[in-house]
């Protein structure tokens, strides 16, 4: 296999919050991302899935340097991004782009669709010919399924799905090599979600992008991912290739996420409700459980899980899991 384009090693982001008022000031540390490592090849898609608070969006931002990591390295094409000066990092951003969750809120309401899409071109190539910019903008609109004659319309004249297409066009206008999509469909209607997922998949193939697709729902990333990382409280619980994960998840948390997805079939859905899969909420990030982070909610926990932290380890299949009981649990779907 050729070399990975992106290599993330032991990446960690810690937020510090102050509590206790002026006179009893206390610092509390929140480990949002805690030692994430993975590699990504050109043309490959990694799905990142977890509940809110799992650190998936922070991870996405830390990779792009939008949040400064406290530890670890992000290597892009062999070059370390974490050590780069601001201007050098900015130049790199031509190759590394992001699509945000809320398609309407992330577009400037006072700019036309065309201006929004073309803005990165003006920023990075201020001397580019006006006609050339317009041509490229229209081309991008066509590529993401917008009509080029909508170029002078404002965001409010588009539906949510169309706004997300504008966001995608903008993120692709500089010809990036890596695209990170942070919950790009969770604010959209079901029928439109499918359109956007299909569009992302087509574009990725066409452009040979390396793609990181963040979502809270395993059913959403299934169609687009080659591998999926399941995150919980800032750590990777499992990193598996798609076929393995959806046939037989290795981690009880992956299994619980999968069982939580509603089945659009009344009889199957009622039958599946026999057992409750995931009780309670994620523990407070300020009071991280000892041992396995997931043990407080895990139906399969044993004594050992409360004391020993399971390392993320490689199984024979080539998939990675952080669970003491991965060998003896059969979580086949």
């Amino acid at each position, binding site marked *: 296999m050729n070399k990975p384009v992106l290599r993330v090693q032991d990446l960690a982001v810690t937020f510090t919050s102050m509590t206790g008022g002026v006179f009893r000031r206390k610092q509390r540390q929140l480990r949002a991302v805690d030692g994430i490592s993975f590699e990504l090849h050109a043309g490959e898609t990694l799905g990142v899935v977890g*509940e*809110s608070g799992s650190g998936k969006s922070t991870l996405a931002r830390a990779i792009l340097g939008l949040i400064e990591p406290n530890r670890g390295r992000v290597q892009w094409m062999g070059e370390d991004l974490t050590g780069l000066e601001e201007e050098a990092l900015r130049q790199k951003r031509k190759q590394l782009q992001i699509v945000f969750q809320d398609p309407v809120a992330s577009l400037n309401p006072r700019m036309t669709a065309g201006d929004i899409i073309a803005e990165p071109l003006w920023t990075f190539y201020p001397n580019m010919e006006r006609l050339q910019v317009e041509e490229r903008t229209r081309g991008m609109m066509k590529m993401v399924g917008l009509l080029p004659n909508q170029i002078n319309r404002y965001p409010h004249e588009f*539906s*949510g*799905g*169309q706004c997300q297409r504008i966001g995608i066009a903008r993120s692709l206008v500089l010809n990036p090599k890596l695209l990170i999509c942070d919950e790009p469909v969770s604010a959209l*209607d*079901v*029928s*439109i*979600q*499918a*359109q956007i*997922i*299909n569009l992302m*998949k087509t574009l990725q193939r066409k452009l040979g992008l390396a793609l990181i697709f963040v979502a*809270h*729902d*395993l*059913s*959403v990333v*299934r*169609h687009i991912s080659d591998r999926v990382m399941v995150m919980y409280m800032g750590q990777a619980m499992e990193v598996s290739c798609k076929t393995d994960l*959806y046939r037989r998840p290795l981690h009880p948390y992956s299994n*619980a*996420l*999968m*069982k*939580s*997805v*509603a*089945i*659009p*079939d*009344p*009889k*199957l*859905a*009622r039958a599946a*409700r026999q057992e*409750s*899969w*995931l009780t*309670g*909420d*994620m523990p407070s990030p300020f009071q991280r459980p000892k041992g396995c982070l997931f043990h407080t909610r895990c139906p399969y926990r044993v004594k050992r899980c409360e004391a020993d932290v399971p390392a993320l380890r490689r199984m024979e299949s080539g998939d990675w899991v952080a669970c003491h009981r991965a060998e003896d649990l059969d979580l086949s*779907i």
Partner: protein
Amino acid sequence: MTLLRVAGLEVRFDTPDGVVKAVNGMSFELNEGETLAIVGESGSGKSQLVMAMMGLLAENGHASGCAEFHGKDLMQMSPRELNSIRGRHIAMIFQDPMTSLNPFLTIEKQMIEVVMHHQGLSRDEARAHAVEMLRAVRIPDPEERIRQYPHEYSGGMRQRVMIAMGLLCEPELLIADEPSTALDVTVQAQITDLVAQLRKQTRMAIILITHDLAAVAEISDRIIVMYAGELVETGNVEDIFYRPQHPYTQGLLASVPRLDRVADDELQTIPGNPPNLLELPSGCRFRDRCSRAMEQCLQRPPLWVSDDGRKSRCFLPMEGGRVEQADAVDGEAA
């Protein structure tokens, strides 16, 4: 027994760009103890339909038609009369639990206010009742947690608090508008669990409003599918999921990504976008996105009805159905 009967309900909004027809000629009935899901994309009018019933439309909104609750028309009631029904007999839960809760008051304060107002209980009685409701929606340590503020609860717990508040006065009808859309799948599953349990244990009727058909498969008796302000199909839950008639319903079902099936490479979609309510097409409103559109779809499609309460608005014939002749009255005037 019929609890709610809605007939010819229309909602319009005056906007600077023109009149938006948000809901057109909606008619349906809801029986006691029944769970009805109203499904549609954003802009389908599903929320405005119930907002109109409850007298909660925005200022530029106008509603007409009737919505009889226990035989009395909600649409004709004075704000005072409506107030005595809301909360007491009909409770509503909204999508975002954080904006529906007052951040400056403890959960206790917010909950017992409702009970004292509507049921005239003493403070201690009201408090005991509130704790009991929190326990019913599976808030751990309810005696402790009732003293906390909304920000000390997680998103899923806040929504469970909202449900508990809705249940305080033991309403006959609970309306939940996208109760779990903003929440994680795991929490969605918990809320679904909770609603399933409520259906078993109470005789309360429930209206669930959602854009996600999958979310209501398990917990509804009947489903209404809305598109661009209109009813396009209705039927019991098995009919809708196993024998959908309208191409829109079929498209919605097909576009749900499923984990219980082998994945195709490409997800099924409904192409295009919902129509602009300011410039509604004549004839079938779904026409432009429909894979089975024909020439006659430029005309207004007929409403098929069957004896068991199924309906479909489409030129494609509905199995076991006949064309509703009286349909012209509740259709659009044009």
